[in-house]
């Protein structure tokens, strides 16, 4: 790892951290796969934007930003951030099923997640529109003298919105303790970056121009992602300034839904092959022995089965609930 002058020299990631990281990625992967598997029964009746392929970016959140005072906001593809930050699995699955004990009583679904106790504040589904909310949270922390930093997740399309630059400008102006995280998977639905941004543009380079420290890293390399977060956290705390991270990554499934959509040929086969070969789970495989792996799989499977069984058995909210809680 290259350590630049701005950053403290950091210790190498420990064996335990590596295992925890692997577990967290595997857990998110299996949960997402279970959602995909169950979707065909048409009982999950809301759009889902699965994080499969991009889990390395959400996975270390709980470990590195453990306190609920470190707060996360995200966009439509938020499962891995929610689960990675320690959002409650049962409430999450119940919410997908539209059940009364879901995280928002069935009113929100996959695209609008929340679990305040874990520090996952909210996700919303209009590209870019939760970014200023995260900046506002950071500003309110200053007013109330609260601890913690704010992590704001969004995709490559969000950097094409005006609100992104407006929010960034304010965070820089007020020196807010925010980590902006761009998960660049190169596609806005089916539209490749080349149709949306000039060919030779690098997002992190462009963003740097507005006056913020940026780091670009391979989002599919869990160790690199982990170390980048460590650097970012250290930078934000020491310099009391925001930072911008760009993680390049790739989604395995369709933009929205439970299937793969490579037959539509909007992504080149060579591109797909490259990313599958560099899948974040694969990268860590060699670090985990077979015995441990079996143990992990078993433990995760049990947790998932319990959550899905609860969700399936739970009651729907009463119909009269739908007009409640309109005004406080």
């Amino acid at each position, binding site marked *: 790892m290259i350590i630049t002058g701005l950053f403290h020299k950091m210790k190498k990631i420990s064996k335990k951290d590596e295992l925890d990281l692997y577990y967290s990625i595997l857990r998110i992967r299996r949960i997402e796969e279970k959602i995909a598997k169950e979707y065909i029964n048409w009982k999950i009746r809301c759009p889902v934007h699965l994080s499969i392929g991009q889990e390395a970016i959400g996975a270390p959140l709980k470990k590195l930003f453990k306190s609920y005072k470190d707060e996360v906001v995200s966009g439509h593809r938020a499962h891995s951030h929610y689960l990675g930050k320690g959002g409650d699995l049962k409430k999450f699955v119940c919410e997908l099923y539209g059940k009364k004990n879901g995280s928002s009583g069935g009113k929100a679904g996959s695209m609008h997640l929340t679990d305040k106790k874990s520090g996952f504040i*909210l996700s*919303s589904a209009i590209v870019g*529109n939760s970014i*200023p909310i995260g*900046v506002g949270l950071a*500003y309110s922390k200053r007013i*109330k003298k609260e601890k913690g930093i704010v992590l704001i997740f969004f995709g490559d399309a969000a950097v094409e919105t005006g609100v992104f630059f407006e929010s960034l400008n304010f965070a820089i102006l007020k020196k807010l303790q925010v980590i902006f995280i761009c998960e660049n998977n190169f596609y806005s639905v089916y539209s490749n970056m080349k149709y949306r941004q000039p060919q030779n543009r690098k997002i992190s380079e462009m963003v740097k121009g507005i006056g913020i420290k940026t780091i670009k890293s391979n989002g599919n390399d869990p160790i690199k992602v982990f170390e980048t977060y460590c650097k970012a956290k250290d930078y934000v705390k020491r310099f009391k300034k925001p930072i911008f991270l760009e993680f390049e990554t790739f989604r395995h499934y369709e933009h929205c839904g439970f299937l793969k959509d490579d037959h539509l040929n909007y992504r080149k086969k060579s591109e797909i092959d490259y990313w599958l070969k560099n899948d974040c789970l694969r990268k860590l495989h060699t670090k985990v022995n077979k015995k441990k792996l079996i143990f992990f799989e078993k433990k995760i499977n049990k947790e998932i089965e319990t959550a899905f069984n609860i969700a399936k058995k739970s009651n729907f909210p009463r119909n009269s609930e739908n007009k409640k809680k309109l005004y406080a």
Partner: protein
Amino acid sequence: MPKKRIITFAEAINEGLRFSLLKNKNLLCFGLGVGDPKEVFGTTKNLQKQFGNQRVFDIPTSENAMTGIAIGCAINRCPVIMTHQRLDFSLLAFDQIVNNAAKIFYMFNGQFTVPITLRLIVGKGWGQGPTHAQSLQSLFAHIPGLKVVMPSNPNDAKKMLIQSIEDPNPVIYIEHRWLHDQKGHIEKSFNSKKIGKANLLMKGNDITIVSNSFMTTEALIAAKILRSNGIYADLIDLCSIKPLDEKAILKSVKKTRRLIVLDDGHDFLSIASEIISIVTIKQFDTLKISPKKITMPNFPVPTGYSLTKNFYPGHKDVIKYCQNIFDKNIKYDNFSNKNFHDVPHIRFKGPF
């Protein structure tokens, strides 16, 4: 008994802001011009000096993000009062207002409240034109989750501003630029009641006049002229557009059996249309004649001095209608500014 104080509408807003900023040390007040030398027509006068630039501040010209930032602060219990010097500018923030502010309490099943107040100032006259003079209360009132208020006098301006700030929901606070210099009595203290009650400004059995904001000035002029001609009107000043005090309107129409609604929104889908629809659906049989809407035409406000002459409807339209339905010749002096139609009073000079 202590003497009643008389202050302007702008001073009343300034007092309401100061009162609220003193009361809640987490309350923030920001917007373009909040800390500049003119201090939003005097409404934010000396606030930055008193409360510091962390709580009261000028912002980047980023209406959309700043509204989102307000929402982020608000869900962490730092209520925000944000100002737009023209309502038209707030349209840049429609995504945040509609998709976040109005939805968050409902969508997350009550786990967050969004106590933000957006002060939107409506321009009129001196060539404000198509993009600086829109009164779009219908647009905001259409969205479930938002509250919309439109005070018409200094006392209500202060009272309702405090109510709006203390309300746990997003409130659109629409203030008319021509009201800023109007003077009025101000109560010594306010009991912070909830938003949603209309004021009965005048009592009468002959006709119900419903109005809001600056249209209430026009309605008051009309109602006084009518009274001197022997026609007595119930004059209902709505104060709050949403929630709407339906009860007050229905009760009054039951008595007078005639209804005029003044609203400075465009005619189509206006607040006036909604009120008339409510009355006709709920108590059609109480109406003696068709209700009347006095609203803005369905095209933008032009800029040029000559084009705006006779553009804005007002008290004359109320009188014309009453002359007709009561079959009576109504005599009155011309109340409006005889020299110029595009300023609120003779001392007023542009550009604002």
